[in-house]
């Protein structure tokens, strides 16, 4: 293997795949990046066995070949090289990095020992606007559960029926649902569960991604095609809980208020909430929302209120302040809407209007107040 490429290009390529290289691994070869030189392109691959990335750039290839190199050391070295062309040569199981005046050698592991990547069939690929998919991910990913004993909740449900793509995430206490119409993703009518790692990384990468990305679901994997970079992630086994059933359809009470004022209110009052439960009490009255918190440990309490437009009887409900804040951050309009019927069932939080073709809402379960 031998090729020449500019330091900047090489660096951007290494940095792209480096993120997937696991910090610790029981399988030594996974700490390595696989380099492949073929025809007119150099390819780099990395995987932690859950997520795999392949990224490629054009380079001046002298000899074809492949080898794996320790990821972090290689990346550090490339980053520190001076500007200019770099020549990479594979000699036996070592890689030689030649800059204008320097020569570095790093021992690698044979490419045969690197996990084999599945062949991807792109015939069912769908192109989707990058910002749309990124927005959907960001509106749902925060609700993903951390509880490893419920694997299905550790990912985002993706489902596409009749041109409507739905993403849902929940940790059992809050739930986020985002829908986008006018999309036709094949093969996920019944829904699949996508682990968040690859999606998070995609959101980071997509800063300089093309305007449209390709999506393929195949053989228990989701493939995200960003032109020169392909991210593959395994899916989580279902079944996903029946979320439709828990979203209340009718409400007897509706509160409309300024989102920023509400966020500030909750932040202020929650400073004096119990710092394990983060419990905050909301009293919905005729013209205001009152927020209250008590922390017996420090002998503190707080009470404050903001104006609000409310229809319904006065009601007192407890919530985990952190969940409220987390959800409110994703309400996109200045005004937020909160709808509910009783103090012991899920409330729906929503923005006052939605962008074209998009619909979303959030659910929050009360932190019941003891009598």
């Amino acid at each position, binding site marked *: 293997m031998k090729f020449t490429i500019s330091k900047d290009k090489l660096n951007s390529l290494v940095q792209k795949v480096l993120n997937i290289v696991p910090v610790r691994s029981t399988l030594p070869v996974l700490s390595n990046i696989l380099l492949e030189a073929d025809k007119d392109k150099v390819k780099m691959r990395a995987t932690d066995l859950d997520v795999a990335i392949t990224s490629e750039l054009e380079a001046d290839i002298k000899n074809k070949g492949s080898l794996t190199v320790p990821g972090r050391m290689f990346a550090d070295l490339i980053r520190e090289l001076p500007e200019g062309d770099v020549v990479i040569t594979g000699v036996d199981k070592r890689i030689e990095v030649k800059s204008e005046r320097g020569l570095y050698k790093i021992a690698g592991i044979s490419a045969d020992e690197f996990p084999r990547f599945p062949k991807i069939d792109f015939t069912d690929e769908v192109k989707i606007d990058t910002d749309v998919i990124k927005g959907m991910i960001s509106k749902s990913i925060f609700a993903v559960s951390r509880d490893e004993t419920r*694997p299905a909740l550790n990912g985002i449900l993706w489902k596409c029926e009749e041109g409507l793509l739905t993403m849902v995430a929940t940790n059992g206490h809050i739930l986020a649902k985002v829908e986008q119409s006018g999309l036709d993703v094949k093969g996920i009518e019944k829904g699949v569960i996508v682990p968040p790692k690859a999606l998070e990384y995609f959101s980071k990468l997509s800063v300089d991604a093309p305007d449209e990305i390709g999506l393929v679901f195949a053989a228990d994997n989701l493939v995200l095609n960003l032109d020169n970079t392909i991210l593959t992630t395994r899916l989580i086994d279902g079944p996903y809980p029946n979320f439709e059933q828990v979203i209340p359809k009718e409400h007897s009470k509706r509160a409309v208020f300024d989102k920023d004022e509400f966020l500030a209110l909750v932040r202020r009052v929650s400073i004096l909430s*119990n710092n394990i439960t983060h419990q905050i009490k909301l009293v919905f009255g005729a013209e205001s929302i009152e927020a209250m918190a008590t922390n017996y440990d420090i002998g503190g309490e707080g009470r404050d209120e903001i104006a609000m437009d409310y229809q319904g009887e006065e009601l007192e409900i407890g919530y*985990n302040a952190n969940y409220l804040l987390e959800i409110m951050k994703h309400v996109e309009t200045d005004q937020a809407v909160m709808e509910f019927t009783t103090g012991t069932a899920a409330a729906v939080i929503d923005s006052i209007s939605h962008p074209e073709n998009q619909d979303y809402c959030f659910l929050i379960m009360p932190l019941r107040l003891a009598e």
Partner: protein
Amino acid sequence: MHFSTGDKPKIKVLDETLINKIAAGEVIERPASVVKELVENALDAGAENISIELEEGGLRLIAIHDDGVGMLGEDLELAFTRHATSKLAKADDLFNILSFGFRGEALPSIASVAHVKAISRVKERDSGSEIEIDGGRVKGLKATGCPVGTSIIVSNLFYNTPARRKFLKSPRSELSRITDLVTSYAVGNFDVGFKISHNGRELYNFPPAAKLYERIIAIYGTDDIEKFLPLPGTDEGMFNQPGSILGYITHPVMAKSRSNETRFFVNFRPIMSRTLLAALRAGYHDKLAPNLYPPTAIFFNILPRDIDVNVHPAKTEIRFKNESELFPKLKRLVEHALKSGGVLTELSLNTDEAKPSGNGTQFIHAKRGNDFSKRTDMQESLYKGGFKEYGESSETAPSRESDIEKDGVDIHSGIEKPHESTEQRMWQFMDSFIVVPLKNSMLFIDQHNAHERILFEAAMENLDSGKGATQQMLFPISIDLTPGEFAIWNEYSEVLNRLGFETSEFGGHSILISGIPAEMDDKAPESALRRILDDFQEGGEFKDDPFKSIAASFACHAAIKAGQKLQYEEMEQIFNKLFACQEFNLCPHGRPIIARLTSQEVEKKFNRHVPIRD
């Protein structure tokens, strides 16, 4: 003291009744021992259905009816004579024991410490016989009409041995021992029907099952059935085949804090064995926490001459002639079952070998639904980015900390407050201890014990004041309890609710969890609740104070565990909350929370001259 005062000899041969009473001391310790002996007799008699009636945890009444072969009148009388047994005729037979009971001690022993009535009929006769024994003396034998089989009715157990009675636990706790025991026999003899009722209420009814699998469903319900992993060959298994090892183990998430559901059977007899338990653990590798026990039903068919069951009168301990072969065999089978169930992967099995063969690995080859070790990596990266704000929003300094701040040293323990700095000021060691360097010493805080203390104090407060807050759940979890667990839940559901659990009856032995204490870590609330119930089956840790017991048990099972990676914010939270506790040196069970390494101790290790400090 003088030994004798007159000319009468003082040493006498014990009379039969007294001998039986002494023997009873060995075999009959508590109501469960009576049930055990009688159930074994019923099984030996070839019963297809056994029904057990209990009153007051078996102290007032234990009545066992079977449809086995029955006994003739004269045999019935003989059965209550010491060492009379139909199962053993000469000493050689001791080494070829296949039946459950063999000592001939059981019935006379029981009869010496209780009122006993026995009714039995063999199918060759039209009528049965009835015998009554009171304090070891046969009071009469008469003919009576009854179905084929045997009924033994034991009432007022230990009425004549008040000392023994004193050592018994509450009827509830005795009852849960009995249900545990009968459940074990019901697993081991799945082809026999078992029915049990207490104070007139049916606790459970297991119809005779054709397969072990059906009996497991009858006991555990269908919710968790996919977590039962068969040992190779179990599904089509021939349980009678000599040398066979068959049965089920469970996914590590099912593991419990007590070992009572980790069941081993040798020739269908429930037994205990450290060797087998160790082999089972070895098979789970690192997937099983050292203080937890997975429910199992593992059947060993071993030739009678290769075992010795006459080790202990209660016959629960067993000795194997070929233990060294059995250990690796069981370990391998367990590994195999866990691998098929997706719990163990080749990778995790190979961790102790230097380098796994590289070309065997494939990217995302199979669905590895439940491989937790892999999943954690993934989780971390998400929450490092996504959940940072959580810590920021509401960290407040608890009052105790400001006390510490005042003079740098806390009066209670001489613990200084860490340096004020924006840099990282604590680290995690072995994923189990929070390490905090101070000016003149280094603190090691046991994360589990510390969190346990924090939760314990919060729970005690909630129980006292009834202020427990409940985080309600979008997707309530239904769990199938065992009959014993259900009985405890029934009794303590109100206390659990005060703690913040929201639970309700869900038909049969199932309950629905629709809310959890807001203090609780979100992970697997159902197994924490189960373990709390299990602890209570034992009567609770603080016998005098059920609130304290339930708070301690809740704290123990809801607290983060050793070996769990913590985010920096989580460490800070534990640190701050711990020093806001009334007591922060000991966990509720009395184990230390904080260990301290002083600068002098460190300097000593480097052979430094210890500078004189003022």
